[in-house]
């Protein structure tokens, strides 16, 4: 029991972030009309591309004096993550563009 409490205290900031983010995610989504489910899923999907920050940090501090597996895979990670981000936001925008059009 004490160990759990120690763990909680050590990582209290992160635990706060997690707890509040979960609540936020649920709260933000809960009252969505079903028409918007698909664009919303697509938009959230684009946000999950934040992993790109990890890719940037990884490649940013990689040794570029020679071509290593780390460098190549890191570059691939950035490319894939950007596909997720750019593709995700553009697709979402394209879907929403249609909703706009028919409003007229």
């Amino acid at each position, binding site marked *: 029991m004490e160990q759990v409490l120690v763990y909680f205290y050590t990582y209290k900031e992160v635990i706060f972030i997690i707890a509040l983010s979960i609540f936020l995610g649920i709260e933000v989504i809960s009252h969505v009309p079903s028409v918007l489910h698909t664009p919303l899923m*697509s938009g959230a999907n684009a946000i999950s591309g934040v992993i790109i920050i990890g890719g940037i940090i990884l490649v940013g501090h990689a040794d570029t004096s020679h071509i290593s597996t780390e460098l190549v895979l890191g570059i691939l990670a950035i490319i894939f993550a950007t596909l997720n981000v750019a593709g995700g936001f553009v697709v979402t925008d394209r879907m929403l563009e249609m909703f706009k059009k028919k409003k007229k």
Partner: protein
Amino acid sequence: MDKIIGTLNGTPFTMGETLLQLSYLLAALLFVYGLKLLSHPETARRGNIIAGAGMLLAMISTMFLHKNADGQGIALTNIWIIIISIGVGTVLGWYIARTVKMTAMPQLVSFFNATGGLASALVALLEFPHADITDVRLVLVTLLGLVIGSIAFSGSMIAYGKLDGKIKDIRAGIMKYVNIALLIFVVAMFVYMLVSGKSTQELGWELYVLFGISLLYGVLFVMPIGGADMPVVISLLNSFTGIAAAMAGFIYNNQAMILGGILVGSAGSILTVLMCNAMNRSLLNVIVGAFGGGPSSAQAEGGTMKEITLSDASILLSYSQNVVIIPGYGLAVAQAQHVCHELDQLLSSKGVNVRYAIHPVAGRMPGHMNVLLAEADVPYSQLVEMDDINPDMPSTDVAVVIGANDTVNPAALNDPGSPIAGMPIIHAHEAKNIIVMKRGRGKGYAGIENQLFFGEKTRLLFGNAKDSLQALVNEIKSL
């Protein structure tokens, strides 16, 4: 930027570090605000752009302000490599997103989700050797990021293949046990890697075995799930990608990644539950794939299906007052939205009141029908949601069911033993006449008979929805 502006717990911090954290805070706020705006029709588009701006901010500030543990910034060569990689990804992503047909939208979302999952898996794979094996928390989040990211990747690719019609459903009872065995194996690998006494650099093949097993699990996890349940699966895998990104956030102790990832994880989960609710099924039911499982009480005696000729159908439609079109997946598959709109315009010009009844889960994704019909320029006012159209069904002269099946199956209302019992449906059976356009005499996705098709008031028009609609349009024009 390197100016030390203060100390925290004895560690000095610089202006650059402070600005980086500030920009992460701003990015996180933009994510939340963007997602909030995305959930309202009027503000959705702006929300999408705001969330994108948050992402751009986080990317740029990381590139120029991030420092590793030794206080080293990102070198110029590396910045160029990063910018070029981002450029390649952006051009590719933008091109794919812009050129793919509107009907292929669901599989596209799945594809982009897959790339995000793969990126998370790669980052975890590369960061693992840098972790200290005695730091159990760090090792665990790295391995979890690898496993969850890989499952999201391979699972989404299978979902993509299924939606694209490239992969068929495979159902074997044994797969359930194989999947459980794989999960146990993954947990065993975790424990083994932690207690083996090897350093993270020495754990080479173990790491790749774990990677491979996770990929395999993703494939086998999605394989038995039916094509019609793919929206739920994509939403679930989307939340997986979010969680995998959050795990990577723990590796770098990066709040923007943690918040963004968890936000998507929880939003994705709740969206998954909402979709399941719309079909009145539990998530477990979707995953285990209880549809078409055991014999159900719904295997009632069939009766006969009565066909209708094109000329009869065209006369019936032309001289009706109220027509309700109920589109389903068949319309999307046949890409018949344009000719469908042609039919409704033709009928409207003859004074017929034509409306579309939209079931919340019609098609392959919630909102699929709305997007599809919007592409064909069907006015927003003509699309009516299920709950609003149902009271009007008894006064409807003709209900035209185009490639929909389970969403109009009355068994959901009157047969408690049916697998879809309790699922809200569009009350097509209450209309005075029903015309059903169907490819063949087969059952719907749920694998259950639809009494609507055998009803006294029902007539069937067999064939591909696009061909049938085109023939019908031609027939009405020649009347």
